[in-house]
């Protein structure tokens, strides 16, 4: 199994979720995060003073998938989260050794 961690533009969340559920994903977890990267922040004004906003709001999606689904999941996330602008985000794939479902005690694939 793998853990996919995707950082996307917040307003794409709904699309990405939709797309993942269509290919059979059954669950995922979302966190509001702030990111800094190639997409530059902007300056804002408050009472005449400028201030720099470096960190931009992003959504982090964490998604555990069986190995065979990884490729497919990457594809649909890329498709759904893509706008073509800088700051579209990244997907990280990390190894996932074990998974347990708390309610049933099922493990691994069955637990997803």
């Amino acid at each position, binding site marked *: 199994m793998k853990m996919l961690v995707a950082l996307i*533009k*917040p*307003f794409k*969340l709904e699309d990405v979720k939709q797309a993942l559920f269509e290919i059979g994903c059954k669950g995922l977890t979302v966190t*509001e995060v702030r990111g800094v990267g190639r997409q530059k922040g902007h300056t*804002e*004004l*408050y009472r005449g003073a400028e201030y720099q906003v470096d960190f931009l*709001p992003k*959504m982090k999606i964490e998604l555990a998938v069986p190995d065979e689904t990884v490729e497919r999941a990457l594809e649909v996330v890329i498709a759904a989260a893509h706008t073509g602008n800088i700051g579209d985000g990244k997907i990280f794939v990390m190894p996932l050794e074990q998974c347990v479902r708390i309610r049933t005690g099922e493990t691994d694939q069955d637990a997803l």
Partner: protein
Amino acid sequence: MEAQNLQQLTFAVDTFYLLISGALVMWMAAGFSMLEAGLVRSKNTTEILTKNIVLYAIACIVYLVIGYKVMYPDPSTSAYAADANFFFQMVFVATAMSIVSGAVAERMKLMSFLLFCVVLSAVIYPVQGLWTWGGGMLTEWGFVDFAGSSIVHLTGASAALAAVLLLGPRSGKYLSDGSINALPGSNMPLAALGTFILWFGWFGFNGGSQLALSTVDDANAIARAMVNTNTSAAAGTIATLLLTKLLWKKADLTMILNGALAGLVAITAQPVTPEPWLAAVIGFIAGLIVVLSIIGLDKLHIDDPVGAISVHGVVGIFGTLVVPLSDDGASFVIQLAGVGTIFCWVFFSSLIVWAILKLVLGIRVTKEQEYIGLDQVDCGVEAYPEFTSKKDG
């Protein structure tokens, strides 16, 4: 000497009464601001606050320079200070304009809105005000609208309706399958506070509209107006509570607040002649109407984030039409004619102004700006910069 002192004191008391009433109506501007700030999403909160304070300012200045003269070509007030009369009349314009700002919230360009505000305060409102309160044709017909269910509230709502029709709904409000998506308001305590402010301020709105205090009859009329105002609002509140409980098994606070306001609007056309029990009945029905109207307009995909068109328009009409129930001087037909006349004038003249603004400047922000929120787009100041948002990402 004595007699003269008494006359002076009478003059002073009536002036003071009007000034206090006017100050209470000014305070309603704060009520609209808080109500609307509570019922929009946080990304549009600074903008709606800006809109509300600036519209009040514009209404005051424009009415001073133009509107007052249009509405009262010859204001002869020897019984109290002329300035007090102006003051009391002025704050009513701002109320009408505040109604508009709620209905067009979360998608209209700030500057176009403010330009409309100039026209409404200078021309649209005063012209129809002249017809009734200025002693014009509606008064001659026998049209009765004591404190402005139509002249103020329906006027605001008609201008708002014209705007909403040209503006369209907020994106995301109506889904592609025609279903309605809720866009919950961000701050309920503010919405409740706004309603309480309006309720309180309404004692000046209706109580002050007697325009004189110094006789037993006047004093009794004012006292009755205040009791009825309060009673109607209370009944509207209870009606909405019961209806939302019945419909949805929940006490929907936002509807209940609209119910209280509906009670206030409905009794405004004639708060003096009804017995309190009749005021309660009127308020109760107003509370029912407002819920059904809000649901109905939503079905028609007329998007009004705060329910202003229902509260001030639909209920304003209702309130004006039930005046004959207690006031022998009024007739249903004339009331209907008055309502129709005011609506037509305000709606169509507003439609033209909005249309011109749409052509020349545009009245709606872009889709992306709407997504980001008007606070960043028009004000550059976030309403709650330190709080993380759960919604919209």
